[in-house]
């Protein structure tokens, strides 16, 4: 299987879907001539021209709204936003329109729109550029939410997102862009709502979201090598729909769960999952569900502070071990 970077896998998905369907086009700030802030759209402007690869003014709310309108009228727009923090400027169009239109107009109109954007800390971009906000989008009915952590998933899920008739919030990660992985040749779209077990184990279930799926895997290795704890690592890949069955099956086996996310603790993905797990598998739990999250603060710039403010392997290992404390 060819090995490529996450950003290249996304680029392939965009190119293939644009070749396949003339209605698919992409727009965003600096995605054309500049080739994208993260080079995900590299080469597309040259290949498809300015009709289908459209540089936009800096106007997030309007760009997304234009995407919603174009989607209602039959096109299949992809909007790239430079970071998830900037999608906050477009919250109005995303929540009040994209997510609601199909429902609010009795199913007459659909909004096959994809909003792509990266999230994540670690590049010292400070409190206006570094957050992980998947929980905000998870909150909203009508949206599909994907947060792929490998190049293969990035490609397969982006293809699925583009072909789906619902608005999709597609969350990439700044740190993942440069990561390599195998990507199946001529792979088609993957299905939303299918989690993957990245590593099998019988002692504790670790669910990692977005980049934290990678951190969870590394923590699992450390748990095995240094603590004789075999962790099962699950990457849900999409948060809406969520493959709760795979997570519950694992928890019923291990009787312990740790949820790892980069975002904030209150109202987070972990808070939601912990509620679901205790509702559905209370009798199987030997310990409270543990959450490992980003610190409950705006992301600071200073390097040591920033690194201390989001989860690393050590934090996951500590949380997992704490579930065995009373045995």
């Amino acid at each position, binding site marked *: 299987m060819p090995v490529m970077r996450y950003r290249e896998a996304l680029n392939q998905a965009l190119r293939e879907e644009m070749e396949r369907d003339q209605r698919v086009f992409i727009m965003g700030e600096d995605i054309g001539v500049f080739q994208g802030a993260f080079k995900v759209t590299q080469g597309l402007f040259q290949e498809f021209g300015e009709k289908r690869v459209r*540089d936009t*003014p800096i106007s997030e709310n309007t760009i997304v709204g234009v995407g919603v309108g174009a989607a209602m009228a039959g096109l299949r727009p992809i909007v790239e936003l430079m970071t998830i923090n900037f999608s906050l400027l477009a919250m109005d169009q995303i929540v009040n329109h994209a997510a609601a239109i199909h429902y609010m107009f009795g199913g007459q109109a659909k909004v096959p729109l994809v909003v792509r954007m990266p999230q994540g800390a670690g590049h010292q971009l*400070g409190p*206006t550029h570094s957050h992980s906000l998947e929980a905000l989008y998870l909150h909203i009915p009508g949206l599909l939410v994907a947060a792929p952590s490998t190049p293969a998933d990035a490609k397969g899920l982006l293809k699925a997102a583009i072909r789906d008739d619902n608005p999709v919030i597609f969350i990439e990660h700044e740190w993942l862009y440069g990561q390599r992985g195998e990507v199946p040749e001529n792979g088609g779209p993957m299905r939303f709502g299918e989690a993957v077990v990245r590593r099998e184990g019988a002692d504790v279930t670790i669910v990692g979201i977005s980049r934290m799926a990678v951190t969870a895997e590394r923590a699992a290795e450390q748990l095995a090598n240094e603590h004789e704890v075999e962790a099962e690592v699950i990457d849900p890949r999409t948060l809406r729909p969520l493959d709760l069955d795979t997570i519950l099956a694992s928890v019923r086996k291990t009787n312990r769960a740790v949820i790892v996310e980069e975002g904030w603790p209150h109202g987070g993905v972990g808070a939601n999952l912990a509620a679901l797990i205790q509702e559905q598998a209370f009798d199987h739990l030997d310990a409270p569900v543990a959450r*490992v999250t*980003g610190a409950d603060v705006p992301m600071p710039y200073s*390097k*040591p502070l920033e*690194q*201390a403010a989001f989860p690393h392997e050590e934090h996951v290992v500590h949380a997992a071990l704490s579930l065995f404390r009373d045995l």
Partner: protein
Amino acid sequence: MASEAAAQRETAKGKRDGREALHPLPSKGTCEAVLRKMMLIRRFEERAGEMYAKAKIGGFLHLCIGEEATIVGATQALRDTDYLLSTYREHGQALARGTPAGVVMAELFGRVDGCSKGRGGSMHLFDMERRFLGGYGIVGGNLPLATGVALACDYNGTDDAVLCMFGDGATNQGTFGESMNLAALWRLPVVFMVINNQFGMGTALERHSAVTDLSKKAEGYGVPGHRCDGMDVLDVHAATEEVLRIAREDRRPQLLEAITYRFRGHSMADPEEYRTKEEVEEWRRRDPIASFSRRLVEEGVFPQEEIERFDREAVERVDEAVRFADASPFPDLDSLYDDVYVLGDQVRGWWTVDERSPEPHRGERERESGAVPHGLAEAGAAYAAVGDVQARRRREQGRGGPRAAAEDRDTEREGG
């Protein structure tokens, strides 16, 4: 593209009736102060670029080299009691307002003596004492804030005014039109200054704005527009003084467009494939510091040696700033939760859970949270050192050519 930029410049001059030559030099003392400020900003920015290459500075670094006359000319027109708000390209604004260079550099280094205590970094400088109310990382985000500050000035019955600076790209945000309308409707003492450096990141003005005479862009909202030559410190100063007067005395907000150019990339890793070397060269010939210096020598205000001494002293101040920043420690890890809330009788603390201790604990007691959470914080912070070595290597290579720069892209972004 180059000729269009040139034509636009001519319009700016034309509109002000070829007044470049007509601005008489101010007093010798003022000339010296203005020149020294521009030199300090230039030398500071050059050094910041070097410090970025050494990975002393992280994140994005947006330099204002080329825009010094715009920054200094405009801020010279402010009273000490007036307010200034800017964007993420704001080191020059802080320095012009009088924030010590060491304190700005320490912020860029992420140190505790930085003007935002290391929390904000290059894009988020702040100095309440000097009424510099911030650099902001969100394009267009500062216009409503400035309008609100002007509202407070008006509400309190003062005659303070507000100067709000932003880029050509920011004029496309909804906040631009919305702020103009509200400021005009409520007759607020605010001057909106668009620093037209011809690009929003890699997108040229004519590719991002339907109306390229940005001074006209707010007329429909009831905010009259003006243009000045952003490469001529005296022209910027005269224009800003006039619009500030109108905003302050007549309670009519104004828009002022300064035509300028950024000589360097948008941020440090910008390969600048969207413009030609010739275009940059053409603008560099109009270097605002060199041209003002030349005039001062020609008109006999200072001999060349004196000008060179000012510049040497600017370099020394920057040396000193780097020493200060280097000597300042990183913020204490235990300070992570400081300042999330204003604590008092009403809010004594808050419940939180974080990655350092899965058990709930009180955020304001972070300092007393014990050895385990502290150890975990240190484990996280230790990753800072790992990144440092990698970043330094990448950036050193990055100076070595396009291939290294491409590799750089795989771990770092070049966006905004």
